[in-house]
């Protein structure tokens, strides 16, 4: 799962204008590392009803966009938001087949990021596409993805991805911790690998409160996500690497005498409250579970003030 974090970090730098729709739920491995990303399901019929009900709670951004794939009206709103800006091409991250509702977007030239080998699959509809093979993750568990994009974009995007990989490696243990290699095979075909050596390294996750997927009735504001009168909050993080780190929520407007509880995947964590300026960090050691989207939770005790605002979320050392 750490491949998703690496890939998302590289692609965000190489394709900064793109709007990502990660259709990898119930895992969604790229979502957490791409703060403005939309998310959804490629095959909602396979999802158990309880998981569908859970994912159906979440909304994102000022337009309260839902998870794609659960409701036709919601899907239309997501597509309108995702494809609404010509200067921001749509990048679809797909675990498998292309959902029929997305065929028009694919025909219109959306970029595709397909898990596994795309070489043997029938070409997607629409304009011809070049391919960058991407290999990422620890050397013991390498994941293969294919980025399908306009042929003319292969060379410049490959170059930007390569630069991004070098920069990310420098942040995460240096060149000795990574094998980075790749080449431009033809003008429309390239490959790039960023493989971790030794301990698994993942970029720290730091998300502003306003960018989080949440189940509150309101909308985020510039400073964060106001809880209003809500006593509970769930946050959809997406698929996370199976590793231990500190889960932290930065909150404003708390009463330290009535500290909230922090939950991960529905279970309360042993959390502590730490003041920092006018805000507080609510933090606990946590271990993410692979294979499913992680969900953080916050519960305010009776008598806690109603003016709390979630400023940020971190999952880091």
């Amino acid at each position, binding site marked *: 799962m750490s491949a998703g974090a690496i890939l998302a970090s590289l692609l965000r730098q190489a394709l900064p204008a793109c709007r990502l729709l990660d259709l990898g739920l119930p895992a969604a491995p790229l979502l957490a590392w791409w703060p403005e990303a939309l998310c959804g399901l490629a095959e909602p*019929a396979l999802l*158990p*009803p*309880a*998981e569908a*009900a*859970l994912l159906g*709670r979440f909304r994102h951004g000022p337009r309260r966009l839902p998870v794609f794939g659960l409701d036709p009206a919601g899907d239309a709103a997501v597509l309108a938001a995702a494809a609404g800006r010509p200067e921001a091409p749509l990048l679809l991250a797909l675990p498998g087949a292309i959902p029929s509702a997305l065929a028009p977007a694919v025909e219109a030239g959306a970029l595709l990021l397909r898990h596994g080998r795309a070489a043997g699959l029938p070409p997607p509809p629409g304009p011809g596409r070049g391919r960058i093979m991407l290999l990422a993750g620890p050397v013991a568990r390498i994941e293969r993805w294919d980025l399908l994009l306009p042929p003319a974009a292969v060379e410049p995007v490959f170059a930007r991805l390569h630069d991004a990989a070098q920069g990310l490696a420098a942040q995460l243990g240096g060149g000795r911790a990574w094998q980075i290699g790749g080449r431009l095979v033809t003008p429309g075909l390239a490959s790039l690998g960023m493989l971790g050596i030794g301990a698994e390294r993942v970029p720290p996750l730091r998300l502003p409160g306003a960018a989080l997927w949440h189940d509150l009735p309101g909308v985020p504001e510039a400073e964060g996500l106001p809880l209003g009168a809500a006593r*509970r909050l*769930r946050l959809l993080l997406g698929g996370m690497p199976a590793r231990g780190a500190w889960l932290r929520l930065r909150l404003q407007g708390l009463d330290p005498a009535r500290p909230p*509880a922090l*939950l991960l*995947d*529905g*279970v*309360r964590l042993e959390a502590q409250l730490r003041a920092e300026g006018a805000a507080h960090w609510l933090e606990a050691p946590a271990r993410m*579970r692979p294979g*499913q989207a992680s*969900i953080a*939770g916050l*519960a305010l*005790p009776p008598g806690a003030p109603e003016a709390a605002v979630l400023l940020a979320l971190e999952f880091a050392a």
Partner: protein
Amino acid sequence: MTAARDALTVWTPLPPERNGIADYAHGLLTGLARHYDCRAACADWLAEAPEGVAVLDPALAHRAAGPRALHQIGNNPGHGFVVRGMRRMPGVTTLHDPGLLHLYETMGEPDPVIGAGMQATLPGLAAVYGRHRREDGVQSRANHLLFDLAGEVLARSRAVVVHSRFARNRLRLAHGPAATAHVAVIPHVLPPSRMPARGAARARLGLDDDTFLVLTAGFATAAKRFDWLIAALDTAIARGAITRGATTRGARLRWIHAGAERAEEYGLGAAIAARPAVAAIARVTGYLGAAALDDHIAAADVLVNLRFPSSGESSGSLARAFAAGTCCIVSATAAYAELPRDAVLQLPLTGAPRLLGETLRALAEAPARAAEIGAGGRRHALAEMALPAVAARYRDVIEASLDRPVAGPAAPGPPPLLVLDAASSLRPPQVAAALAGRQGRCRLLLAAPDLPALARLTLDRPGLLASLLPVSAGLLATRVVLAPQPGLLLDLALGWAA
């Protein structure tokens, strides 16, 4: 190394929620934790579970859950999340109260779901009462006695646990032997904590040896017949049996209600105030936590625990009184009539206030007799209601039910299409017969020879659809169609929630 144990997800309210089922579940979890790795799915994420039992957000309880689930349901507005959990993760359901109409109404279930529940209980009466409810908003106490709304729980559960043979028989009479073949009786459980000693409890409450304490407990509802107790005390005082609050042997009589008043259900305070002689010896404590409630029950000479009418509900206060060895007076009805004669005093329903007054006076004169009956109740409870035995019986029911099929969600695909000739002679029974036994989405075409004929029909019979559709049918949409036949196409949701 410890062997891996099976996981059990228990959907339940827990303390600090103020109801007996939350307390019951807390105690039961302590016993079940000896058999399973228990997780408690609770709407209150900050609820208190026994040590070693994690409290789970119900929305995520399906994740990493095994096939074993237990749902604790009572007729309480706070138990809606348990019903919704049962729909998604079926397992064994404990019905603390076979009548669930109040729960369904307060958890926001749509009218057709309630109509379907009424129909499953008494199909003949549901058509009339359901229409009164749906069209005129008529809702009476009779509805709660006639319609138990337990049909969905019976159909969606691998097994159902009730606490008395009365409750099982009542379900069987309403729903038939086939639908209730998986209903098991497991007695209520004794609280896992040790009850306080009587002397210490009385000392904490400031009661001296000469005080004869009559206790009632729990939420004050009309069915607990406080009217009978008040009349009994008032009459006894008026007749001089208890003079100025003192019996002939000199004992001072006191009545404490250890619980909260729900004025909207029964105005206990007002009823007491209307009888000054009773008011002089009575006190209502308001809601008590477990420790304070235990003190009151252990300190009491008599727990008066009446019910009429009773739908088979169980009583946590009674279990606590058994554990404490406190003498209990119950109504000779429903589940209480099953208790052994040497374990409780059973009060006949006829002439209850007079008999209750005489009984209280007699016990106040001879408190040793009350203690004797209390000891009998404790012996019965230790034999039948001890936590290890009850938890083992739950385990047996859970394991035996794992392979039992339950009613599931509707099959994927387009909903079935039914066609009825929408002639002027079409009447509700024909529509009800066509829809009988169906659950989930359904399309019904009321076919007409042509569109002008359809228009005439709707003009001739204003309110056509409201009159034709049974109370268990929710109308989602209507369309006038030409194919496959001209007519009115109804998109319906039938029966229980999907």
